[in-house]
């Protein structure tokens, strides 16, 4: 994909509804022990997010209906990594989640993307695991957080798939996911939480990159995950956690010039360790070979 345009040009967003089994989960409470989740609220928040993407940002929204058999299927980001016109269907850490890919694969094909199967690549894929929430694409390169859910083999598959780009591995500290601690806040801006672990990860990223990124540091970890889209109207949109959820970080976002800030709540999903970006897959289907 030689269309290495600045990060943020998306035309489509793919989301998947929240199933009734939300929170009850395949993980058997590994990530949500004790946390009572409010399904209705989660659905409401999901609706807000989808609405913002469609109506405010102006993306074409594709919503895959929920599947009660797949309680975590709403975390659609994990299932595929899309860059340019290639979609890599990942191999999530948990066996139960691997069937989530089916519906996503279908959508990707319909969108005309070249679908690359991680499993297919190398037979049994040799234990490679990869989840989208550990992958930060900056428009210039990939950072893959080697975490509890993503291993080096998985990163290799990613590198093999997206050969134009440098793929760097970075450690993710504290059992989190890479995108829990950082995300793109603009074409050259990385939003990162100011926790020690996040700083360490960021330092590594800075060392590994040939490019210079602006860093927007936010005090709360949850605030570090945003969704940036440069909409069809050439405006910068940033979906971020609202003041109710991350009161101290809002001022940081306001520093961003000429942005349309879209506070989007994601409290219920974040109880399950997810965040804003987990809920959507952003795709650019406009051919631009400069």
């Amino acid at each position, binding site marked *: 994909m030689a269309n290495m345009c600045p990060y943020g040009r998306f035309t489509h967003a793919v989301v998947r509804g929240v199933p009734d089994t939300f929170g009850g989960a395949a993980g058997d409470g590994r990530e949500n022990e004790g946390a009572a989740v409010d399904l209705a609220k989660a659905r409401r928040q999901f609706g807000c997010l989808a609405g913002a993407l469609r109506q405010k940002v102006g993306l074409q929204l594709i919503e895959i209906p929920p599947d009660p058999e797949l309680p975590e299927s709403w975390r659609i980001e994990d299932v595929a990594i899309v860059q340019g016109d290639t979609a890599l269907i990942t191999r999530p850490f948990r066996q139960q989640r691997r069937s989530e890919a089916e519906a996503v694969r279908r959508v990707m094909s319909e969108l005309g993307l070249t679908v690359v199967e991680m499993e297919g690549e190398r037979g049994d894929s040799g234990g490679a695991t990869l989840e989208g929430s550990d992958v930060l694409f900056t428009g210039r390169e990939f950072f893959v957080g080697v975490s509890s859910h993503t291993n080096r083999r998985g990163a290799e598959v990613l590198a093999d798939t997206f050969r134009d780009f*440098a793929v*760097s591995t970075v450690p993710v500290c504290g059992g989190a996911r890479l995108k829990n601690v950082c995300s793109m806040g603009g074409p050259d801006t990385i939003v990162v939480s100011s926790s020690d672990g996040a700083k360490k990860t960021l330092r590594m990223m800075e060392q590994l990159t040939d490019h210079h990124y602006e860093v927007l540091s936010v005090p709360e970890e949850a605030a570090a995950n945003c969704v940036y889209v440069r909409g069809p109207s050439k405006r910068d949109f940033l979906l971020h956690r609202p003041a109710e959820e991350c009161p101290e970080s809002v001022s940081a976002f306001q520093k961003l010039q000429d942005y349309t800030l879209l506070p989007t709540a994601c409290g219920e999903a974040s109880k399950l360790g997810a965040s804003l970006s987990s809920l959507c897959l952003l795709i650019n289907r406009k051919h631009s070979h400069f």
Partner: protein
Amino acid sequence: MTTESGADSEAKQPQEKKETGKGKAKAAAEPTSPKNQQEQLPAAVGHSTPVRKEQQEEDQESHRSSTSRLTKSPLRGVKKVKIMQCKVTLLDGSDFTVSVEKRATGQVFFDKVSDHLNLLEKDYFGITYRDVENQKNWLDPTKELKKQIRTGPWNFAFNVKFYPPDPSQLTEDITRYYLCLQLRDDIVSGRLPCSFATHTLLGSYTVQSELGDYDPEEMGSDYVSELRLAPNQTKELEEKVMELHKTYKGMTPAEAEMHFLENAKKLSMYGVDLHHAKDSESVEIMLGVCASGLLIYRDRLRINRFAWPKILKISYKRNNFYIKIRPGEFEQFESTIGFKLPNHRAAKRLWKVCVEHHTFFRLVSPEAPPKKFLSLGSKFRYSGRTQAQTRRASAQIARPAPFFKRSSSKRYNMSLSLDGAPIMENHETPAKDGSIDGAAKVIAKEDIITTVTTERMAEEEKAEQEDVQKETPEPAPSTPLRHDTKRSPRLYTHDPLRSELSLPSSPISSNKVRRRRRESARKRASSVSPVKSGTGCRRRQARADHKAALLKEQALLLSARRQRLEQGKRHGGTLFSFSLHLPDLSSILDEDGYITFPDLSEMRLLPECAQNFLPIKSPSLIPCFLFIFFFLLSTSFSVPYALTLSFPLALCLCYLEPKAASLTASIAQSYHDHDSSEEEETDSEHTDFAFDGEMTATESEADDDSEMRTQYSFIRRVKGENVFIRHSNLMLEDTEPPPEVVKHQTNVSELKRSFLETTSGGGMLGEWEKRLSSSPLRSPRGDEAPMIEPLEPQDTKDEQPAGDETKEEVGLKGTVSTLGWVSSSQKVSADQEEKAPVATETETAPAKQMSPDGAEVAAKDMPVVHTETKTITYEAAEVDTNGDTDPGVLLSAQTITSETTSTTTTTHITKTVKGGISETRIEKRIVITGDTDIDHDEALAQAIKEAKEQHPDMSVTKVVVHKETEITPEEGED
């Protein structure tokens, strides 16, 4: 270029060797049939095929030398510049043959190729060659071709060396065109991996620039499949390419190339030169050198990156490559990261590439080879223009855009058996790489054949001739590896004999000795000597050589003793200086000027098991043994006695040798450290001091057992089986213009002085003080000393095979001389004059002023107070035959000092270039101090012997024995 006479002889005797060596000879010479060529190419590149080895073993160099003699002697008679045919594979896959002088530098060659290509912005490009291991190496523009292409055929490739990060900043389209060609090759070979979409996109621009606008009538539907655009070219890809191509109507080739480059430059592996390595935990990684720094990959993943500003120092030791990292904001200390490379060569190659990339991309101007600080080891620096400079220069390009023909990339047309597997690395997959290259060459060669085969005879002749000039890719039989590094120069060789023969009338100058000398000369000249070799056995020859050398030393020793007896002064210090003359020192220096010399254990004089015993492996064992044997023999006249004693003694010596060396070196350093001479600073002090304030690149190969402190170490190469001796820590490295020589000399003398002043308890110290305090003036040129006449030049010539060396000397003048002390003394006297009236009694008998270099001008005024000084000069009759007084350009000068309790050895190596002739002189000054009754003659002989051992290809041209004897009252003054 040197000695592999193998292919030489094969090429020369096609009739003899036709059955076995047919293909090889041709590969070495000119291709005659494409098919054959295809098969033979790897062999030619790989250079020692099993077949050859066998051949080697069975029929020896008796055959070889005779053949070379046959062909060479007529050539030698004529004073003629040797012209080499260099075949360069250009970026479009075609071959271009350039004739260059054998001794031409890489720059000359490169310029010729660039001229042919009509390329002005040539600083981004370079020439590669493949070494013995089939690895790609960059030709060093500052060095002579023949020193770099030691083996194998002179086949090169023209390549992009520094990939401009922003190709749009290139001034000329033609430059971009060549860059495109390189990138296309990088892509097709898999060195530059890209996605399907990128393959399509780049391919479509390639098609547009090469074929122009899409024309459905002319082109049909499968025109794209004629072109090779990707490692795995599928129908789908071709269709997509066509699809895109159709949209480019009206795009000019130059525009298409610009688009191509704009996309290609964004690829993450654009311009990354990959090297296989292992990290500290032996994990396989790749080191990628690029414009911005050093990238570390594991598989395809980038796991680390060190931008040039982060790197303080890069170095290598043996097969380890180190980078020293500037401390991060949270770290206190800089850290050094080490990587293991497959071998020493790989480490060095990586180091060089790093030095060059750093200089090119990071510096404004290339740093002159270090002067102010010491970086050990190699003098290698990037010498070309930096990117900043080349941009400035190309902004001045005023010519109208040159017309150039974009040759169709026919080389991709063939249904070659390219394996589609992506080749990640540039250097380390010769097989894959080679398959592509080779294929390209095959085609290219076909072209040549059509033109060349018309004159077969001429071709064969040419091949012959070429081989005469060319280093033949086959090592000598019984010392198979020896000639790889230690090369005895051939055609341009100045026969070492000349100087040997000019020793003072030796009592042993019998015919027998002469024959031996001749033999040894032949051996050194590596079977080029026209003299018929009596022995076919190299071992015996080698032994004879040593014996001859020893006899000569013996002769020296005896005459020196006679001298001494005449003078009757046994007290005091004796200063020995002697010169070695080496026609081409470079031949035993590796390409960065390190002295490499053959491992005598290679000669298999000893049983296999015994060779594992360390002292036995010492290269000096045999000479030691022989020397001691002869010495004992000469003193005791008892053969059994001499025999029984000499071997254990020799063993002891060799066992102690390295230890003593490192010990003494560290002693030497201690005084070095507080020496004020700016050039004489040590590694540890200077590693952080960098020419751009950012980084130093140093190279050291010292054994790292004691890290920085080991000075004198043996490095055994796994493959080469050569022992490298490096005086790493005290090796001074500076490349100065001629005027500086004197200055350097001053430093040497200062160093000397500081030694004198700091040595405690040494006899010399007292002497020195006395010299400073007491002051009877003496005439500076006492002529009391008996003159020792150097051997007559005629004598030398008589011994020499006719017309052989005189000519060569013109060509090559590595003079290894060991002097310096005397010449530097003039400076010393200048320094001292105010302090003390100087009394000198100097007896100089320099038969001839050796060279105008300044380095060797024997000093006449030796300031001595109350001492008697005797200077005896034995000089080889080989003065500059052309009598040129041009001091030449000093390439480098280095001084190595080592010290034991009673001796100090200062070796001063200067490399100069005079009109394209490189000359290396080694001056070794040995100061022996002490008031005990030292056997000075023995010391002298020992010193000569050592020098010869260390530089077996050099010859002693001058020996100056400078003896200062404290004059005791009883003795009075004569």
